C-alpha cells in the first residue's frame, strides 16, 4: 500500500474539518477526491504532504507510519509531488530553475544532469521552448503544467493534485485536463482533488466524496453523481 489514511481527524478551533477519514491508494492507482468548497479536501492534501499536523489517526506513506503526535519525517518531503491550486511556482526563478532547484538541492543532481532532466519533463509537457521564461509570462495552464513537470522531475511515488484546474479559463482547463489524463494512462499514482467531475470520472480508478469532513469511497463513478448540481462540472 503506497498511501494509507486511517481515521484521520483535524479540527480548526471548534470546527471539525476532518472526521475519522480513511482510504488507501495502491501503486499505479488514481483516486479522485471531490467535495464542495470548505469540505476539507485541501486540509487533507496538506496533511498528506506534511504541511500541517493532524489531531488523531494514522498516516502511512510508503511503509512509514506517522501518528498524530509525530512530526512529519523530513525524508518524505520531495517524495510526494504536490501541485497546488495556485501552482506556487517560484516567481523569481525561470521555469528551468523552478524545476532544477529541487533536483540539485534535494536529489543532489549536478547542474548539467538537472538541466537535462528538466528539459525532458518540459518537453513531455509541451513546454520545451519556455525553459528560460519567468512564470509571470506564462498562461495559467502553462504554469500549472510547469508545476506538474517540477513535481514529476523529482520522481515522486505519489502525485497529489489539489484542484489543478481551479481558476483557469476553459481552454486552459482542457490543457491541464489532457495532461492529467496522459499521466493517468501512464500509470502515475495520483490523488486527484478536483471540482471537475468530468476529469475525475475520466482519470480515476477510485472515487471519493468528502462532505462535512466525512469521506465516502467507491470504485463506482456514480458516487460523484451525488455532487452533480452542487457545482458546475466544468470548474
Amino acid at each position: 500500500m503506497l498511501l494509507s489514511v486511517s481515521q484521520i481527524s483535524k479540527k480548526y478551533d471548534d470546527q471539525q474539518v476532518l472526521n475519522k477519514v480513511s482510504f488507501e491508494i495502491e501503486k499505479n492507482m488514481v483516486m479522485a477526491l471531490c467535495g464542495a468548497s470548505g469540505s476539507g479536501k485541501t486540509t487533507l492534501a496538506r496533511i498528506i504532504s506534511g504541511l500541517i499536523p493532524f489531531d488523531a489517526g494514522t498516516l502511512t506513506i510508503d511503509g512509514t507510519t506517522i501518528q498524530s503526535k509525530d512530526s512529519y519525517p523530513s525524508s518524505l518531503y520531495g517524495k510526494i509531488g504536490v501541485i497546488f491550486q495556485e501552482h506556487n511556482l517560484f516567481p523569481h526563478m525561470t521555469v528551468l530553475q523552478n524545476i532544477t532547484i529541487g533536483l540539485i538541492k534535494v536529489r543532489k543532481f549536478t547542474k548539467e544532469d538537472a538541466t537535462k532532466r528538466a528539459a525532458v519533463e518540459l518537453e513531455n509537457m509541451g513546454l520545451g521552448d519556455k525553459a528560460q521564461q519567468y512564470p509571470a509570462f506564462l498562461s495559467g495552464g502553462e504554469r500549472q503544467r510547469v508545476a506538474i513537470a517540477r513535481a514529476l522531475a523529482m520522481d515522486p511515488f505519489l502525485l497529489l493534485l489539489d484542484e489543478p484546474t481551479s481558476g483557469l479559463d476553459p481552454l486552459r482547463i482542457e490543457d491541464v485536463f489532457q495532461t492529467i489524463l496522459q499521466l493517468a494512462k501512464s500509470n502515475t499514482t495520483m490523488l486527484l482533488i478536483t471540482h471537475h467531475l468530468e476529469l475525475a470520472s475520466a482519470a480515476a480508478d477510485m472515487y471519493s466524496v468528502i462532505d462535512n469532513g466525512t469521506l465516502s469511497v467507491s470504485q463506482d463513478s456514480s458516487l460523484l453523481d451525488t455532487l452533480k448540481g452542487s457545482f458546475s462540472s466544468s470548474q
Partner: protein
Amino acid sequence: MNFSEYVFSAPYLHWLISGAQYTIIIAGLTSIVSLIIGCLVCFLHISKQKLYHVCALIYINIFRNIPPLPFLLFLVFGLPGIYTLLTGNIFPRNTVFMLLILGISLNTAAYLAEIFRSGLKGVPKSTIDSARVLGLKPSDIRLHILLPQALRISFPALGTRLIHNMKNASIALVLPLDVNHMEVMGQAGRIAGQTFTWAEPLIFAASVYLVLTMMLQGVITFFSQGMQKKIVCQN
C-alpha cells in the same frame, strides 16, 4: 554670483571636490554598515525568541524616533564625557569620523530593519509551502526562496531609504571633523568662513547632493524595474 572666484578657483575647487568624495565615502560606508545592522535587527525582530524580538523592537523604536542630529551631537560631545566618568580614561582621539559613520548607520539601520521585515512578510506563504514539499532544507528555503523574493519586494523602499541616508551625510557639517574628512557641505562652510560668501559654495554643495542622489535613484530604478518586470503577472 561669482562662481569663478568662490567655487572654481584654487584652493576652493579642490576643497569642494574632496568634500564630494567624502560625501560618497560617508554615504557608502553608512549604507554598508546600516545594511548589515538592519539585517541583523530584522532577524532578531522575526525571531521566535521573545528576548531577541523585544531587543529588536526597543532598538527600532529608539533609533527611528530620535532625530539623527541630536543623536550625533550626543555621540561626539556627550559620549566622551560619560566614557571618562565611567572609566576614568580619556576618550580616544580622532574618532569623530567613525562616530559619524556609526551614528548615521544606527539611525538608517532602524528603518532598514523594518523594510526588510515587511519584505519577508510579503513573500507568499504558498511559495514556502511549495519549497517544503519539494524537500528543500530550511536553510535553502531561506537563501533561495525567501530572501530573493523579500529583496525584490523591499527594494523600492530600500532604495528610497538609502537616498535619504546619503542626504544625512550633510549633518556632518555640525561636527568637528578635520578638514581632510569633511563632506561637501562642510567644505562649503569652510569656504564661507574664509570668504564670507555662502551662496556660491552652498549652491555647488547642493548641486553635488542633487547629482549624487539622482544617480543613485537612477541605479535603484534600473535594478528595481529589472526585478519587478520578471515577477509581475502578465495575465
